[in-house]
């Protein structure tokens, strides 16, 4: 059995996080991904940390290695006519051109490239990740993660009332746009089986925030004018739905049905004061006096570690869980038993390689490939460009 996407050929002209993550979703499943990089400096993520041993260098970026392991690197100067021509020729031999752009001028370049490719090679799928789409009123604007989360109404729900709202951590818009571009490209390849034709796949990092992440918040705002606002470390429409300080860190407390809360109060904590009528209506508690209930629970939590509380809750089928820090997750017994983290060999074959997240899902018959090393800048230029002629 071969990996799921074996046989698909992708040309990636993308930079940073979003486009390269889309390419990773192909490369890790056996597709041939040829990555076009600018000469000398390459993909800008080569210049981002985290670096191996905090030692910066074009071949030492852990982020680059994670995103680009298993791809081929071809350096082409796309601003020269000859370079551009050899790039378009390469695209002609591919199934998918994967591209991302961050500014108005880059979007314009991509639009003309799409026209050229679709005219000369109508079977090629062109997947474009751009700030606000390939057409429409906002194509000239540039934007960053902070913009996409804000426009997508995620930011407004995070943070304390009265203080500035918060963007989700790291750079989730990029990964997410990449994942969307990967799926949408596959959709276009399925369509091509019927139509014989490629098409434009148009993805903005705003799209996913503005659609699939819009749950009851948007629906309630529109249908019932009930607006979700940020409320610090809790949600105020039910209790418990918050973070609570234990002896050695925070616990995440959620009970979505009354029985879970009842079991926690009676079987886990066993405090008769909490069995009073006043502490039964979870909606009322959440809206009107969550701090009062917190105060009653605080001594019990402060006297116990997160793992003690987690074990007690598991035994009682109460879904509270520890808020883990990154180092704790890195040594999580669940992830270890499923071999979630994998080792990516270093570009020059030295050292122990890079530990990083592996496959996001397990396919029983055609699993993700064990990662191969990331390409050195321009490593495959001669091989690929000669092969294209």
């Amino acid at each position, binding site marked *: 059995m071969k990996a799921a996407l074996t046989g698909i050929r992708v040309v990636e002209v993308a930079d940073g996080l979003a486009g390269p993550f889309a390419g990773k979703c192909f490369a890790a499943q056996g597709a041939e991904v040829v990555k076009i990089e600018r000469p000398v400096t390459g993909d800008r993520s080569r210049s*981002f940390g*985290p*670096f*191996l041993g905090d030692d910066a260098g074009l071949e030492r970026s*852990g982020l680059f290695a*994670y995103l680009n392991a298993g791809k081929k690197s071809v350096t082409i100067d796309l601003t020269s006519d000859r370079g551009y021509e050899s790039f378009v020729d390469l695209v002609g031999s591919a199934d998918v051109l994967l591209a991302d752009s961050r500014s108005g001028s880059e979007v314009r370049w991509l639009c003309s490239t799409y026209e050229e490719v679709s005219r000369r090679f109508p079977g090629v799928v062109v997947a474009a990740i751009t700030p*606000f*789409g390939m057409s*429409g009123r906002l194509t000239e604007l*540039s934007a*960053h*993660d*902070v*913009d996409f989360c*804000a426009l997508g*109404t995620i930011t*407004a729900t995070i943070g*304390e009332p009265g203080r*500035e*709202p*918060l963007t*989700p*951590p790291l750079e989730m818009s990029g990964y997410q746009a990449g994942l*969307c571009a990967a799926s*949408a490209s596959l*959709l276009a390849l*399925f*369509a091509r089986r*019927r139509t014989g034709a490629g098409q434009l796949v*148009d*993805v903005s990092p705003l*799209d*996913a925030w*503005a*659609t699939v992440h*819009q*749950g009851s*918040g*948007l629906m*309630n*705002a*529109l*249908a019932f004018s009930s*607006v*979700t*606002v940020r409320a610090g*470390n809790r949600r105020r429409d039910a209790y418990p739905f918050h973070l609570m*300080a234990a002896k050695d860190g*925070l616990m*995440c407390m959620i009970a979505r049905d009354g029985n879970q809360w009842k079991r926690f109060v009676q079987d886990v904590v066993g405090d008769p004061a909490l069995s009073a009528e006043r502490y039964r209506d979870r909606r009322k508690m959440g809206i009107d006096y969550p701090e009062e209930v917190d105060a009653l629970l605080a001594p019990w939590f402060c006297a116990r570690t997160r793992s003690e509380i987690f074990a007690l809750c598991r035994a009682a089928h*109460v*879904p509270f869980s520890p808020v*883990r820090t*990154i180092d704790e997750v890195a040594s*999580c017994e669940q992830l270890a*038993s499923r071999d979630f983290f994998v080792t990516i060999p270093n570009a020059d074959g030295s050292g122990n390689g890079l530990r990083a*997240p592996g496959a996001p*899902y397990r*396919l*029983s018959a055609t699993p993700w490939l064990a990662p191969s090393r990331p390409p050195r800048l321009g490593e495959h230029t001669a091989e690929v460009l000669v092969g294209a002629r």
Partner: protein
Amino acid sequence: MTGEFGPLSGIRVLDLSWVLAGPLVGRLMADAGAEVVKIESAERMDNTRLGRPVATTDEGSQPYDRVPLFHALNAGKKSVSINLRADGATEIVKRLVATSDVVIENFAPGVLDRLGLGYEVLREVKPDIIVLSMSGTGADGPLSDVPAYAATVTSLAGLESLVGYATEPPIGMLGANFADSLGGLFGLHAVLSALWARDEQGVGQHIDYSEMEGVCTFLAEGFIDYFTNGRVLGPSGNSHRTGSPYGVFPATGEDAWLTIGVTSDEEWVTFCSATGGESWGEDPELKTIEGRLRRKVQLEHDIGRYTARYERDVLVAELRRAGVAASPVYAVGEQVDDRYFWERGLLERLDDVEGAGEVVIYGSPWKLSDTPVGPRGRAPRLGEHTRNVLSRDAGLSDGELDDLDAAGVLR
């Protein structure tokens, strides 16, 4: 509404899932033209049917057929009601599996096996079936039995430890249900990959998706930094490594905010000319990214005092006109007044929901130029297609259907 042919036209999906992540995979497949049959039961209703319904003038309409979130997650599907715990129910489901390409389920690990519908059973029925199982922590392993909600999963995965103001304890983003929505996106990608493998290599397979692992994937930078350099990230407010000023700034009025992102020295020059005459414009140290990061706290404080003098939308428009990346921080629901969201198809209107007037749901998170994707109608009424689908696909006669109905199997 999106037209007849879609990229997944001809693909048939049996959607046994409920609540959020699983139904979202089915919804995205229905948007792309797949026929998605939702198996559900009045005995154990999808939780999102139990939300607040919109009002209607149609007296025959059931409240659980009028919940906006249910429509968002199940638009364009068919509904077959079967009580999976009733005698004979699993045999009917197996007949439907025989004519399906994909099965989606997000019961707790082991439940499908106990119902007699585990992957090994289903592959006997249809050797190349693709079964997507979605769970909080995965189908096996020491924590696979942990009861999970989206925010307990993101807590276990480390995400919540990164959300908060710099130097303060984490406050998390519990309300976002991030793990479930992300599960919808990863689940779909897994199914599409497996369908491709089936078409090319003739194999079916089981997909085991752990929401925790999907979330960890999005935190790759954090794990790499820890594994290679021993650094443990924590809350950092709105800061980002790529530059300053970068983040959320106040505007005039109550709870009004905008974003500004300057990530290069060229963007800084643009920002300075857009905000002409302010003290930062002439400061030589601020001309480099290193200098701005060094003085980040004071600089962003000063810029906040400047932005607080302006109306949010006025300042955003000015900054954008000058070429600075800036956006309003929209409150939940505020985006419906921005026509870009409608033009882009991020929001869509359903106009035939149970006499309840218009219901707004979200569109697909991508655009395809020639085979458009997007919602193909409202969500089904509970059991709306039971007889139609069971006679067509399970080969049941009217008499057999009457008997099953009388026995309570089709509830």
